[in-house]
């Protein structure tokens, strides 16, 4: 049986590279799963969690920002601006980011870029949601 290869790349590092059994990813139109011999696919990703089953016992969970996922010939490539493994997430930092974003949204449009603050808020909430799942 051929292996399914997963690669997660961000501008600062290669977060993960290895063979997996299956991957569930947050597509912009809903979560979807990928198994071996999946048809070639290119999809946008929304903020959410990536679940990768490494083998029968071991699975990895990542928090991701918006990005892209490509499947071709049993290789999955995910690129996003920020991807973190669940147990590598800094809770304090995410918590601080959430407070900052909430404050900015509350303070309103004159002072801050609301769209950016909202994006930051959903990233922070996502991190806090994913943390510790591994």
């Amino acid at each position, binding site marked *: 049986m051929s292996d399914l290869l997963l*690669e997660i*790349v*961000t*501008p*600062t*590092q*290669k977060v993960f590279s290895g063979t997996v059994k299956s991957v569930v990813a947050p*597509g*912009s*139109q809903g979560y979807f799963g990928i198994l071996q011999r999946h*048809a*070639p*696919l*290119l*999809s*946008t990703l929304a903020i959410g969690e990536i679940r990768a089953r490494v083998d029968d016992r071991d699975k990895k969970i990542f928090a991701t920002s*918006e990005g*892209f996922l*490509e499947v*071709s*010939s049993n290789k999955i*490539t995910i*690129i996003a601006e920020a991807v973190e493994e669940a147990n590598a997430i800094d809770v304090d930092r995410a918590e601080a980011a959430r407070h900052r974003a909430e404050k900015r949204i509350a303070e309103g449009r004159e002072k801050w870029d609301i769209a950016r603050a909202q994006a930051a808020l959903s990233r922070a909430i996502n991190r806090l949601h994913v943390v510790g799942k591994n």
Partner: protein
Amino acid sequence: MATLRDIRRKITSVKKTQQITKAMKMVAAAKLRRAQARITQIRPYAETLSAMLSNVASKVDHSLNKFLQERPVKNVAVIVVAADRGLCGSFNANVIRHAKNEIDKLVDEGKTVTLVTAGKKAFEFFSKRDYAIDHKLSGFFNHLAFEHALDISQYVQSQFVNGAYDQIVLIYTKAESAVKQHIMVEQLLPIKPQELDEEQGSFEYIFEPGPGVILDKLCPKSVNIRVWQAMAESYYGEEGARMMAMDNATENAQEMINNLTLHYNKARQAAITKEINEIVGGAEALK
């Protein structure tokens, strides 16, 4: 002939200069290492992104996306990436000379060229010479961050979309190693997708949500990352060039010190010989 004291003074002065160049070389070497780490970090991301983009672009009509659309070229924007500081050998001169040739060529072809400069040295050169500069970013390489690339990238993108520029060219230094450097001239916009090899091109892809939406998201990202990569490469080249220049300077200073020391010893010996002669001559006269 220079007196002994003059020579000694000169030696001390050259030694001090040598200390400075040596320190600068060390600083450049440390920065070079950091710059190199940064490049190796971006590379996989940039390559994957560009591969994906080429893949989608080869399967959809280019008129779907404004970043891919070729239009008659009248207004060209040239982004020149040079350094903020000097003392790095011919690094700045090389890239600026190359850029100037490129710009003059475009002007000869009857195009209107506007400049976007990154790095103080590029701005200084072109602002003194009657070139139209639309946008500049200076004094940032010391704390280079992705935001700086975004600043330039988003500016040219908006100008491209609203029709002020028809084509955007990116000129920067790419360093293979600290010594071997090339000047790169690339078309940034409209995006020219890479040719795909047979195997990659033959797949029938599923696009989610749709190729148009994916392209709309991929294109700006790809432009951003290419500007960022150019800046990172240029900075790596700059520090490499600086390290080489300072290494040469240190060596030259050492050579100068050696020569001066030789002169100094000769002069000292001559003075001693002269004194002995005088004493002997004096003693001889007393007999």
